[in-house]
């Protein structure tokens, strides 16, 4: 993930606290065979620190000797590497290339804005310049990037600052913006264009950057100070060979879902067909800033421990354990050392690999407090509702944010949102939209723990139909967000969350929480319909009864009719949906209403009448054209 975030110079790359010796990667032997799986994920994920890790990966893919590998690594050019590994980086095909390019740029922009505590405003334009040729332009209102760093960030592969931090951020997808730039360069020969401005007092810099693929170095083609009409922010333009497909698994869906998971962002999107879609901001608060945490002993692999031992600045084991890990207390430390047969005062340098393994085992066996979870920034129930409200035209919305919990020493948090009814198709299976750290996951649905949890849930209990082992059928959108400092993807493609029991359980609980509310709603709606039918029966007979009674007693037709109508209304009270000024309805009930809380929104939609949600959604024809959902309006109360 490219890091356009800070206006400050980047931290030194590749001082990795994890994994490999990135700094000497090119010439180093291949990483240990028992390379921790986790790092495998991470280096891909974070993508920035070193191309050497890429090299390592490519070699680990083939059965060659370390020596042979080393030779190859020396000789491999970035472009060759890139061409061979497109599929790993999200450029497997032309369609996905376009998506990945947009995704990298958008994720960068959002991360940058959030880290600078700026409410994101993004412009995304994808234009077709020739057959199979597209230009992707993404502009943000972020802090901008200092002139000196622009070439490195955009013109050098695997350069960044986020890799070695244990912190919740986007950047789970493939490779940085420079890879997209390189893809563009390889396929079209055109350099990547960057315009960035850090302050309204300064001029903007305009660079055109090619990548020296042999040396992995930015090649500045064009450098100019220019005037722009935005006070701060960055605009990236990339020309590339790609293909655009509307609908699922394309750029449209990605933007659509990004807007749902990022209701604090304002996104204007122009797609290649010239459609202008605006996703207005649904909430005015930025997600809380996330904290960086130290690794938890239960969440690391032996290799990582050894790596950490090698790189730590602490001199003694006791200090090392307490300082480099979270939740290791002095008593834990003492007992671990005792089990291992060392003391906290043992020099770190004296630890050999066998002792390290014993320390590792002792750590795994000790009871250690779960890591703190304040490092997580869930989307939030209200924000999910706002996102769904602006993205999906349903009738019933509910969301649940589970309490943070831990899998294998990594804090994580699940969030679930449902949108039901309204204009969603009733005959199809439900639509599942998955997010990891606010980034939409569009591929490999069936391999994902989220999908499995949804398919395993008994949806019939909630009033939906479902064939065994698949998604439920009905007018339902299920949104599941996985937030963690470390998202365990199943593979390098970063498209499916691995199936850990703890994760599956949390997803299930979240689904059940929302499911119960959905069930209440469905039952209630059925009941409302029934009550409505009941009333219509009474209303139908009232004139006859009034006429007859009047004919016999002379009590007055109108009086009787009015009285009976009042009684009918009273006795079918549930059929009345009291509308508030936003077109939603509130029911009055003596009992505490399970749907009367902030986690649920019900929108009145009258399919026959004028667009009930018009106020919420504007007169758009496209589902994606969300109009402003002012926060208060988006909520029930």
């Amino acid at each position, binding site marked *: 993930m490219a890091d356009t975030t800070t206006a400050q110079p980047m931290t030194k790359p590749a001082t990795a606290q994890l994994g490999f010796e990135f700094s000497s990667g090119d010439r180093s032997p291949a990483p240990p065979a028992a390379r921790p799986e986790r790092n495998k994920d991470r280096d891909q994920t974070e993508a920035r620190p070193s191309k050497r890790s890429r090299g390592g990966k490519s070699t680990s893919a083939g059965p060659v000797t370390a020596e042979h590998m080393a030779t190859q690594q020396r000789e491999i050019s970035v472009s060759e590497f890139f061409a061979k590994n497109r599929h790993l980086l999200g450029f497997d095909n032309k369609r996905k290339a376009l998506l990945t390019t947009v995704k990298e740029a958008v994720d960068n922009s959002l991360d940058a804005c959030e880290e600078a505590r700026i409410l994101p405003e993004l412009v995304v334009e994808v234009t077709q310049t020739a057959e199979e040729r597209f230009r992707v332009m993404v502009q943000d209102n972020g802090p901008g990037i200092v002139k000196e760093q622009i070439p490195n960030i955009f013109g050098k592969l695997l350069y960044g600052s986020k890799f070695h931090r244990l912190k919740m951020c986007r950047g789970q997808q493939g490779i940085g913006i420079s890879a997209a730039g390189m893809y563009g360069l390889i396929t079209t020969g055109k350099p990547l264009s960057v315009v960035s401005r850090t302050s309204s007092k300064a001029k903007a810099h305009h660079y055109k950057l090619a990548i020296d693929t042999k040396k992995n170095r930015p090649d500045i083609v064009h450098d100019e100070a220019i005037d722009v009409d935005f006070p701060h922010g960055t605009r990236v333009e990339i020309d590339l060979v790609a293909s655009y497909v509307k609908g699922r698994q394309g750029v449209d869906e990605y933007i659509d879902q990004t807007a749902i998971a990022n209701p604090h962002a304002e996104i204007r999107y122009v797609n290649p067909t010239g459609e202008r879609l605006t996703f207005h901001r649904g909430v005015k608060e930025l997600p809380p800033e996330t904290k960086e945490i130290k690794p938890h002993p239960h969440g690391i692999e032996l290799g990582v421990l050894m790596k950490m031992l090698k790189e730590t600045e602490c001199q003694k084991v006791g200090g090392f354990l307490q300082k480099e890990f979270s939740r290791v207390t002095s008593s834990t430390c003492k007992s671990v050392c005792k089990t291992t047969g060392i003391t906290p005062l043992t020099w770190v340098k004296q630890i050999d690999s066998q002792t390290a393994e014993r320390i590792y085992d002792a750590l795994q066996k000790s009871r250690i407090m779960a890591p703190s979870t304040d490092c997580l920034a869930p989307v939030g129930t209200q924000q999910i509702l706002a996102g769904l409200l602006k993205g999906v035209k349903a009738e019933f919305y509910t969301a649940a944010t589970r309490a943070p919990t831990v899998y294998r020493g990594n804090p994580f948090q699940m969030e679930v949102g449902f949108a039901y009814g309204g204009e969603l198709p009733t005959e199809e299976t439900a639509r599942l939209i998955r997010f990891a750290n606010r980034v939409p996951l569009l591929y490999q649905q069936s391999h994902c723990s989220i999908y499995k949890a949804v398919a395993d849930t008994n949806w019939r209990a909630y009033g939906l139909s479902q064939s065994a082992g698949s998604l439920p059928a009905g007018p339902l959108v299920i949104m599941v967000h996985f937030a963690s400092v470390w998202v365990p993807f199943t593979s390098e493609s970063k498209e499916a969350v691995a199936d850990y029991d703890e994760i599956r359980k949390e997803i299930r609980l979240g689904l059940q929480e929302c499911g119960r509310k959905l069930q209440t709603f469905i039952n209630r709606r059925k009941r409302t319909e029934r009550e409505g039918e*009941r009333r219509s*029966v*009474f209303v*139908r*007979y009232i004139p006859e*009864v009034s006429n*007859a*009674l009047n004919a016999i*007693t002379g009590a007055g037709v109108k009086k009787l009719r009015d*009285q009976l109508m009042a009684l009918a209304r009273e006795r079918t009270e549930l059929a009345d949906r009291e509308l508030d000024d936003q077109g939603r309805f509130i029911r009055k009930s003596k009992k505490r209403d399970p749907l009367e809380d902030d986690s649920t929104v019900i929108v009145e939609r009258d399919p026959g009448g004028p667009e009930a949600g018009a106020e919420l959604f504007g007169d758009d024809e496209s589902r994606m054209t969300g109009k402003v959902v002012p926060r208060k309006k988006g909520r029930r109360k």
Partner: protein
Amino acid sequence: MAKKVRRPGAVGEGTHGQDGRLTDTKTRDKIEAMARMVVEQIDRADNPTLNIPVRSLSNVAFNEKKGIIEMGDGKAARPFFDLGNARRFMQTMLMSSELLKLQQQHKTTSIRDMFYHCKHTIEGAREETFDEQEESDPVIEDLEVTLGALREELRIFANPEGSMVGPMTIRDTGDEIELSRMGSGGWAVPSIVEPHVIQFVKSEAKFILLIEKAAIWMRFNEDRFWKTHQCMIIHGGGQPPRGVRRLCHRMANELGLPLYVLVDNDPWGYYIYSVVRQGSINLAFESSRMAVPAARFIGMSSFDAAEFDLSASVTIRLNDKDIVRAKEIMAYPWFADKRWQREIKHMLKQGVKLELEALSNKDFSFIADTYVPEKLKKRKWLD
């Protein structure tokens, strides 16, 4: 008046008035009182509710002493604001107002006529107030029991069905009619045979023979059975209508004539006999003025096939419905008598039923010439 229950025993002559004169004002008052009660309920914002005496087996009792079925106190609430009752409530109200009009205009009409009179499309709906007469007839019966007014007091009559001939002279609405001179069709028994309509002028009959079917009655008439045996022959076209039952009741009570009932040998035949003898479940409130507890079941009996040496080929196998019905009938308290249990059990054991026509297998007039006379002579009947 919905709450007023017709107490068993209060039915009949008492309510009707000894002179049998229709008391229009009284009926009118009852309808008005019921409607006023509903209006009061509405004024109180209560769910308008009629309490209607239950006309089902659960609410009848067999009075062994009197030998008739009597209605109990059970009542069913019919609230308007109830999905299952709303339509019936509406129909009851509509029917009440139209019955009141009938009173005000001093007219008498048929239940079918009332059905047509009340039937119209509900405004603003594609629904009829009454879809078929099967809907309006029970509403009228509901009103009879709720108001405690006889059908005749409501000025309603059922479709007259049934004929009678025999050595008797009557006066029908002022016309004197000699029932022995009625040709092949006989005198059509009207629905209302109350004393103010029908009076017995002269009778030479010794008994009454009530025949289930018109076709068999024709045989008896053609053969002049009534002349040979000095009796009245009457039929009711299946289940005898009120007029026929009421007339039998009057002839039995006022003229002291024994009543013999001739029906098919099947569960339905038994039931027809029982209705004649002690009243129907549905009209239990009218038993005391309809039932003839002394009625005798002359045939056909399940033992007749053997008795009269009937060919097995004229028997009909009992179907499942017959068997169920037979068992139901066996469980009625008024069939608890040993002889009746034996009779029905025998039918079930044989597994066959017999129609009256089966006797024609012997000879066209076997039934009138041999069967009935022999049974009468040998006093082979059940009661």
